[in-house]
């Protein structure tokens, strides 16, 4: 899960970066960048953090 979280987070960055190469209009670029940001946030909050919360110290106390 940790590796998957890092991969998804990095993927979001590459999607945002690709916006300047695959689109030329400002609106299209903005949509792609926002999609990239959403992917990265999902990787951090939804995948990576969840993996750590599942084995958090307070669950074992």
């Amino acid at each position, binding site marked *: 899960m940790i590796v998957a979280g*890092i991969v998804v987070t990095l993927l979001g960055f590459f999607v*945002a970066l690709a916006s*300047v190469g695959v689109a030329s209009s*400002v609106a299209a670029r*903005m949509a792609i960048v926002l999609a990239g*940001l959403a992917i990265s946030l999902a990787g951090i909050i939804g995948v990576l*953090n969840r993996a750590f919360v599942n084995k*958090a110290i*307070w669950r074992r*106390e």
Partner: protein
Amino acid sequence: MKNTALFLLSLTFAASLGSLALAQQPAAAPAPITDADLKAIAAPDPKVRAKGDPAGDSTGNVSDIAVADPITDKTPKAKGLTIGDIANQIGQNKIAINFVWTLITGFLVMFMQAGFAIVETGLTRAKNANHTMMMNFMVYGVGMLAYWLIGFAIQEGGVGGVANLGNSPVLSREFVVNIFGKPFGLWGQGGYFLTHGGAYDVFAMVLFLFQMVFMDTALTIVTGAAAERWKYAAFVISSFIMGAFTYPIYANWAWGGGWLANLGTNFGLGHGYADFAGSGVVHAVGGITALALAIMIGPRIGKFTRQGKPVAMPGHDLVIVLTGCFILAFGWFGFNPGSTLGASSNGNLRIGSIAVNTMLAGMSGSFGAMLYMWLRYGKPDASMTGNGLLAGLVAITAPSGFVNTVGAVIIGLIAGVLVCLSVEFVEKVMKVDDPVGAISVHGTNGLWGVISVGLFADGKSNYGGSWNGVNGSVTGLFYGDAGQLVAQLIGCATLVGFVFSFSFVVNLLVDFFVGQRVGEESELKGLDLPEMGALCYPEFEIRASEAAAGV
């Protein structure tokens, strides 16, 4: 009689026309100043000077101008003072003003370390005060060493000439790759040890000092989020890596001639990524690294119940927390206005506007947080009000050079509310423990600051006619340039996607080799004795029942 009156009237009218015509003639150009004129300027009589100069009228005069070819007893035919000498003196005075400005504002930023140290220590428990204070104290030295050895070269090794600081060419080696047919600068390659590649240079020294204290600000943010459970050895290694690589890489992309700064010239996105003083470069890098570490290291023992409900763990000294906030607000007058890297020429007189924006955003940030807490919880929470002030200052850091005062107040106000919402989200939804709110103050509001440039930049600033190589002024969406907002969002995506991943992997490796977290026994006892060998407050008796409960 009537004829006489008409004659006088005609005469007056004619005279008026004549004088008008005279007034419209161009004034005669003043005679050019020659070297001979300069030699006629008398220096104050040494006998008069010998009596003292209580009014300061004669100290600083023509005899203080450096002369390239001075007339002496042995060189009576030398040129003496020339126009060229005066031009050189003016040029050096301009650079001297900018050097002094940059250095003094850098000194102010350095003092922010003291503010961070006492804010973080005050927000943690007394049993960890020595440990928290020592992390904040040594992050200065650890970060500086890493930055001197490696970080500065990566960040600024390819920055090229900086007009305000004398256009020195000694830092002009950037590693560049081609992506989408455009050059992408990735890291600098000159200036290691401040000696490599001609970096033993007055310009490089000034730039190093100013950029070093910025880097250290980013590093000290992380210590707050990991406080009360971070192994000291891991802190030292992690901070060294951040000062050598994590921070400098992003800073190069934004400020050192890297690809983010060139999104405007290469892809027509506004003026490229514009981060005036570092909401993204300094604060978001620090806040996002803090998030990576806080997720990895886990919450303090007792922070969450078995049902996942957060438990309040108040800090031990609100007095030093709020005093630290004031010290930080004072240091921010170095942070933002100093980021012009000069006070003379190239639109640098905007330093007044930048300073006012800074103080206004801090004010509205504290109001935003205080009112939010008051309305939501019934009391104007002191620590969150302090965090609101800092959130406003963090958010205005990137746009401070590009927005007007109304924009600054709005940006700060939103930041003040945002920090409260973010603290709740981090704690209640993500179940991440951040004892000082560093992730929300610096991470969330660092990103907000970056975005706000793309919204509120009013197109009125003019730093030498261009920014990041694009002519004209930085202009946000509300003033007509949507492309600038896209550039800012790409910067945010880089922070969230790349910087987070890089920091996370680096700290995973530190965890593997050293271990990031202290043992449970040490944590319950308090880290002062197990980690540092001495209590911060030896006269205090920490109640055994509280220590056992991890309070």
